[in-house]
């Protein structure tokens, strides 16, 4: 017999757990000073991002917003403070555990970072195969994801045969194919024209609606103004604004 009955106390406990469900990303008083740098890139930053959020980090070049991406990828570790991803202390993560950690995070960049000698399909399948998924899994999943990002029919094109926007879609497909908890985007529209940028943003929005938390670093004001999502503005390594449905500047 399956128990479906909850006592009042149990229900309250359950409900309060739901309310206090831990944020998927939490930065606590994070300071990052690069060696030989005169001032910190991030200065005592605390941020908390809930599961399913869509967050923009904006700010001028050198403000420290890309440092956040690097910290979340565990590419660098903070000088001070703690970072929690999915309730796991990333600052205590040993480097040999980094690969497993990265499988829960997808990432896209301004320069796409696709492999030029592989087709769209192969680029996405590569991300699966190198983490030990079989070719059979790739055959099932990759066409699905390419369809999702709007590249159905272009699976066998090489990156140089695709437009910039299409290449970024391949990159998004690759980042999303492992169904990550978080999608990080570092200036994903930096190399794209405004119309294409809007399309990429629609795609990221769609991915966000599947429950994936999206963290995007940008200084594209149009994009931020269109989306009306949470905006965190950083200046000289400090948070100067954190707005739920913000605009740029």
């Amino acid at each position, binding site marked *: 017999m399956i128990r479906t009955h909850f006592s009042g106390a149990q229900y309250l406990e359950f409900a309060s757990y739901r309310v206090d469900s831990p944020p998927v990303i939490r930065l606590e008083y994070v300071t990052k000073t690069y060696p030989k740098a005169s001032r910190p890139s991030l200065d005592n930053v605390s941020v908390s991002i809930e599961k399913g959020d869509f967050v923009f980090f904006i700010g001028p070049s050198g403000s420290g917003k890309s440092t956040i991406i690097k910290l979340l990828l565990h590419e660098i570790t903070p000088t001070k403070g703690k970072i929690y991803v999915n309730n796991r202390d990333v600052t205590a993560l040993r480097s040999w555990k980094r*690969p*497993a950690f*990265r499988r829960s995070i997808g990432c896209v960049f301004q320069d796409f*970072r696709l*492999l030029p000698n592989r087709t769209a399909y192969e680029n996405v399948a590569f991300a699966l195969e190198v*983490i030990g998924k079989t*070719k059979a899994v790739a055959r099932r999943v990759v066409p699905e994801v390419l369809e999702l990002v709007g590249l159905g029919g272009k699976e066998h094109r090489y990156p140089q045969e695709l437009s910039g926007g299409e290449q970024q879609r391949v990159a998004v497909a690759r980042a999303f194919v492992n169904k990550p908890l978080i999608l990080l985007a570092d200036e994903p529209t930096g190399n794209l024209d405004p119309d294409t940028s809007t399309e990429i943003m629609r795609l990221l929005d769609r991915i966000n609606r599947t429950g994936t938390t999206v963290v995007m670093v940008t200084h594209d004001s149009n994009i931020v103004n269109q989306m009306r999502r949470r905006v965190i503005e950083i200046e000289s390594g400090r948070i100067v604004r954190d707005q739920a449905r913000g605009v740029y500047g």
Partner: protein
Amino acid sequence: MRLKYVLSEVMVGLWRNVTMTIAMIITMAVSLTMLGAAGLMYLQVDQMKDYYYGEIEVSIFLDKEIEEEQRASIESELDAEPLVKESRYESKEEAIERFKKLFEDAPDLVDAVQVGTLPPSFRVKLHNPERFGEIYEKFKDTEGIDQIVDQRNLFEKIFKILGAIQKMALAAASVMALAALLLVANTIQVAAYSKRREVAVMKLVGASNWFIQAPFVLEAVAAGLLGALIGFGALALGKQFLLDGSLQDLTTLLTPLRWDRVLLMLPFMAGAGTLFSAITAWVTLRFYLRV
């Protein structure tokens, strides 16, 4: 799938840079041949010591014109000597016979020797060849004895020469090994550079460290193994055509080299070749890929 991927990466990696791969394999082969030769010498010298120290004799050469009773008294003295295991008398005629047999390839030399040129002698075996000095002290002033020669001195000289050759082979092997390992490091760097995009993506999507490193390390291991095989081939050819061929006369001096000993060098060389290559590749990757 993973194994197939890794193996195909290894083949592609070795082909991409084929001139460097060949250079790497050749230096590795030469180095390992030297190492194998040094190893064989080590085994062989040990075996020769066991063999020759059992056979070693002290030769007591008598005056050519020795009286029969003098000879008999020396003989009985030797027989009574507790240090002596056995002694054997070799007359002038027997000495000539042995000489003729020893130098049958050089008839001129044999013709030049007549009965009386070679002295009669006692061939003495000691219980412990190290105690030659005591025998020497005891008999050196005995009437009728011309010279006492310890064969051990001769062998010590041979062993010294063999030891020197062995050291030289080891020195050459280590210099070549250094060159080979530098080539391995360089090849791995080139391979890692030409695959930097793939490596960056693999790191980004969370491929495990061993999966990223394995193709590179195996590339070095494959080269090391190939080098060991070629080196072993060279060693076997050396045994076949030098020791058993043109240098065959040496084997009357050296104990013959057995094939099973040569074969024993194969796992030794392959082990050394692959292990050092793998370590070098791995260390290079730690600096170069920072995975």
